[in-house]
């Protein structure tokens, strides 16, 4: 029986694996979901609105870019949603929605769209958005809601509050719009280790009963999410291990030198954005090195820069700056630390 239909011709290979870009992206989204849900539980509606607004704005921004460039709309691949979710998790709950929108625009349009979209960007879009907001709107970006269940005082310090115009006011039952308090890292920067001594003994930091950005709260859930990514082979171990390892080492050494000025390793590991940064931001494929050696250096660089900024620079938290700075080194790392190719070394022949 002769074949009448036109056959397909294509170069080999003629079979493919089942991994797809969309599946990878949605897996990451799924592993971040528990941490996001936890933040909604802690902070309530203000957290939910930030997440929804940021994700929606990122998706819209991406679609807009693709329309403008006459490319097919590819929201299904989940990359814009992931960018939105990560950006949301780096923002404080209750952030005005218009600021969320500006951050989203910077993330998906300035940091990604104008570079040509998915895979072409040089800097982590979410980190670019976050750093831009932090520099442009330092006030709103460092105003933290107090999580559920910690009352009117936080770690023994009185809670300050702001009225609708942003002026600091005394807390009383009538005039509170938003109740806020400093983050553990903010306390450390302002008041030293004594202020957080009580905190670092408590498991609250680890389990996430602290205030901060949406995704800075529960180190446990983020760690679990990261381990799932590792288990599903979405990411490799190199970047998280070298990032967290460097932070721990740096903290341990400085703490050993002067424990009154510097907090210990667990505190630095479980507070702020280190967990989410190491597992979810620094491991972004597009903006991290491809090969093992480069990844180790990249992770270590993130760790060192994070700690340097935390301990000495003007900002209490340095993860987003560190990731962004290390993003810039990726082309050089990729170029100079390529894997040793097969047959590179001529082995001596066995006699016989």
């Amino acid at each position: 029986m002769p074949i009448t239909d036109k056959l397909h011709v294509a170069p080999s290979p003629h079979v493919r694996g089942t991994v797809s870009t969309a599946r990878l992206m949605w897996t990451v989204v799924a592993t971040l979901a528990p941490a996001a849900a936890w933040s909604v539980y802690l902070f309530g509606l203000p957290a939910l609105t930030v997440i929804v607004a940021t994700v929606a704005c990122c998706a819209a921004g991406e679609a807009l870019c693709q329309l403008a460039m006459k490319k097919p709309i590819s929201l299904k691949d989940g990359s814009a949603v992931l960018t939105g979710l990560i950006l949301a998790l780096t923002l404080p709950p209750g952030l005005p929605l218009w600021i969320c929108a500006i951050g989203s625009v910077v993330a998906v349009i300035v940091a990604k769209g104008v570079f040509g979209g998915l895979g072409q960007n040089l800097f982590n879009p979410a980190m670019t958005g976050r750093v831009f907001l932090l520099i442009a709107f330092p006030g709103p970006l460092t105003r933290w809601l107090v999580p559920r269940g910690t009352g009117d005082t936080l770690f023994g310090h009185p809670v300050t509050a702001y009225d609708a115009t942003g002026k600091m006011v005394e807390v009383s039952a009538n005039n509170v719009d938003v109740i806020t308090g400093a983050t553990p890292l903010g306390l450390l920067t302002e008041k030293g280790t004594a202020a957080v001594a009580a905190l670092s003994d408590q498991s609250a930091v680890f389990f996430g009963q602290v205030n901060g950005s949406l995704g800075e709260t529960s180190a446990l859930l983020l760690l679990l999410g990261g381990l799932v990514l590792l288990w599903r082979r979405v990411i490799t171990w190199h970047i998280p291990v070298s990032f967290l390892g460097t932070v721990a080492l740096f903290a341990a050494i400085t703490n050993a030198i002067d424990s009154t000025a510097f907090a210990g390793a667990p505190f630095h590991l479980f507070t702020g954005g280190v967990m989410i940064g190491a597992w979810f931001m620094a491991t972004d494929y597009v903006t991290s090195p491809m090969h093992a050696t480069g990844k180790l250096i990249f992770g270590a660089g993130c760790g060192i820069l994070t700690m340097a900024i935390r301990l000495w620079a003007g900002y209490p938290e340095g993860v987003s700056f560190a990731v962004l700075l290390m993003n810039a080194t990726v082309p050089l790392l990729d170029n100079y630390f390529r894997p040793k190719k097969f047959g590179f070394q001529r082995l001596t022949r066995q006699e016989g």
Partner: protein
Amino acid sequence: MKAVTFSGGIHPSYNKDLSSAVTTRPLDPPEEIVIPLSQHIGAPARTCVEKGDEVLIGQPVGDAGGFVSSVIHSSVSGKVKGVEPRAGAVGTEVNSVVIENDGQDRTVDFSGLGDDWRSAETSELKDRIQQAGLVGMGGAAFPTHVKLSPPDDKPIDAVILNGAECEPYLTADHRLMLEHPADVITGLSIVMKILGASQGFVGVEVNKPDALEALREASADSGITVVPLQVKYPQGAEKQLIDACLKRQVPSGGLPMDVGVVVQNVGTAAAITDAVVRGRPLYERILTVTGAGVAEPANLVVRMGTPVAHAIDACGGVRGELGKLVLGGPMMGFAQYTDQVPVTKGTSGILLLEKSAVDTREPDPCIRCGRCARACPMRIIPADIAAFSARQMYERAEEYDALDCIECGSCAFGCPSRIGLVQHIRLAKAAIMAQRRKGN
């Protein structure tokens, strides 16, 4: 013995159980046979018959067109209908001898050496292999006698037979090792004698335990080692096989003989036994007809020059809507535009894929996930080379060792963005080689 392997590689779905249990059976040749004069790497053969000539099975119809070339024999008895261009396996037309089969299967006299091969001169052994038109039967079809004539400054101490059959779907080598283990081992012994090699290995992936067992029995007391290999693609790639068996890495740009090794396919080894011991030239081979697009997958002994359509019909014909027809395995085989292409010495399988299994989507952009680089058995960076190739930056591609690519397809297999990495690299290689030729 613990199963050995190389670094990198992938684990595709093998789908070998479609045909691995089917005993080989001979396929009656069709009424018309089309024997291409170029079935091998190197110069095409020169035709030595004319229209109207009567030919017998085993009679040469083409003489070697040079040292790196091969003799081609008739696979049926009958009358030559003509010498004309016909569809070949790479899409272009190839000068072919068309023979009308008289159905009587008359053969020339086959006179082999029998067991006397052990005392024969190596030059006679090599001559018999050359005259039998032997080429590598794993797919590349490199003339065997050339491989068995290394220069004097490259002494060979080890011969490895490749029975990995790491390509998904294919079971031809599996059946051959299971049904004719003694031929395989004898062939290896002949090659070792010709090359003066002291060590002989047969590498077989552990997903073929029955073949491993059969070979172990056949090789008892022969000093030949049967090496179990881990199941991983491309375990059967020459350089990776040597790395796994002997822990020797063929240098970049080099050949196996640079590390004192010659690799032959198990099919070639059995054919060597046929040629030397029984005096039979290479005019038929075992191949697998398989895939979801064929009704009854099977392993067939097929005469060279049989159109693949004839072999497919013998397996119950096409099932469902046919999307792709591939000669060889799914990882490195060639897609065909017609089922009239003939089976040649290098055809190890006919794979039929359904239309629904053909992915026609456009590739997504590269997200630099690095899966290709981790899968690459040569440890080059397919994503970077492909990106350079797509922008005609061939010098950068060369700097990134595009020429080391063995085109195994591991990178493209695992690419989440479905990028045609192998094709990009192949284009870069072609451009680099063209540039080099221009430079010289």
